């Protein structure tokens, strides 16, 4: 097991060393910062749970280069996002646009939460109207009762 952990750690280190290679140039820090910000909004299609900014997949490296080139040629962030979605679809966006197909995605959680809260309020209100006979009596807060083993049922 420790060997396995060590191997895992070594792998992480390798990844970290590679990650340090990610920046392309440092001659244009402003553009690069902008490029990284845009890339962080884009999903890498090769390793789908990473952004293009995070990933070292070849395609991600190429796409970062592409974003940088487009920024150099003076294109706006929106133009770059449009360029990517025209090729890879809304799937590349970590923040998909609100439309019919993504309605449930955007508002599903809110609907669930409101539904859950409404149910809770309804149940509580109904119970508050019920008479005492609907509930078990509180158990005596007596340390001796609590400590005593349960009586065998008759």
């Amino acid at each position, binding site marked *: 097991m420790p060997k396995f952990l060590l191997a895992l750690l070594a792998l992480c280190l390798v990844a970290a060393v590679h990650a340090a290679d990610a920046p392309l140039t440092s001659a244009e820090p402003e553009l690069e910062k902008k490029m990284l910000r845009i890339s962080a909004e884009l999903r890498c*299609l*090769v390793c*789908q749970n990473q952004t293009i900014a995070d990933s070292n997949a*070849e*395609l991600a490296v*190429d*796409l970062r280069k*592409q974003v940088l080139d487009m920024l150099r040629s003076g294109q706006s962030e929106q133009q770059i996002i449009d360029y990517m*979605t*025209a*090729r*890879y*679809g*809304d*799937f590349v966006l970590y923040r998909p646009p609100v439309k019919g197909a993504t309605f449930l995605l955007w508002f599903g959680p809110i609907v669930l939460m409101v539904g859950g809260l409404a149910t809770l309020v309804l149940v509580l209100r109904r119970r508050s109207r019920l008479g005492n006979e609907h509930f078990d009596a509180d158990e005596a807060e007596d340390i001796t009762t609590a400590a005593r083993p349960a009586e065998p049922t008759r």
Partner: protein
Amino acid sequence: MKRWQFLAPLALFAVLLGFLAVGLNLNPREVPSPLIGKPAPAFELTRLDDPALKITHADLKGQVWILNVWASWCVACRQEHPLLVDFAKRSTVPLYGLNYKDKRNDGLAWLARFGNPYKASLFDIDGRVGIDFGVYGVPETFVIDKQGVIRFKQIGPVTPEVLRDQIEPLLKQLNA
């Protein structure tokens, strides 16, 4: 009404189960391409076997053709390759290759070794044309119609079933 209320959680659970079942059977690697039904991107690339000769998108217009994205470093390409070689032998539809981010010599050696089903392979060294085609997992295969519109895209290796049940009927329909 009240008598059946206890079934509500079960019904809810069944709905959830339905959603999960559908979710499990989707393939997250198959991203629907926004390019289907859109004109194929413009390109101008040299031939793999001749750096002096260029092929552009305009050269291929007016016919139904297939573009297969491949590379010598791509293991899955080897899997589908015999199928393509066989297809090229019996079909009249031109099959073009897009040699994606490869080295010229490696690509040519690969074709010499495994057979060359392509009318020509376009040499896309930096993957720019690949990006324009929305390529993210080699191999990928596109069917492009006479107007230059992408009609079909296969992500990953073409299987005999996909070729027989989807690509060939589509080619017949487009060439009719």
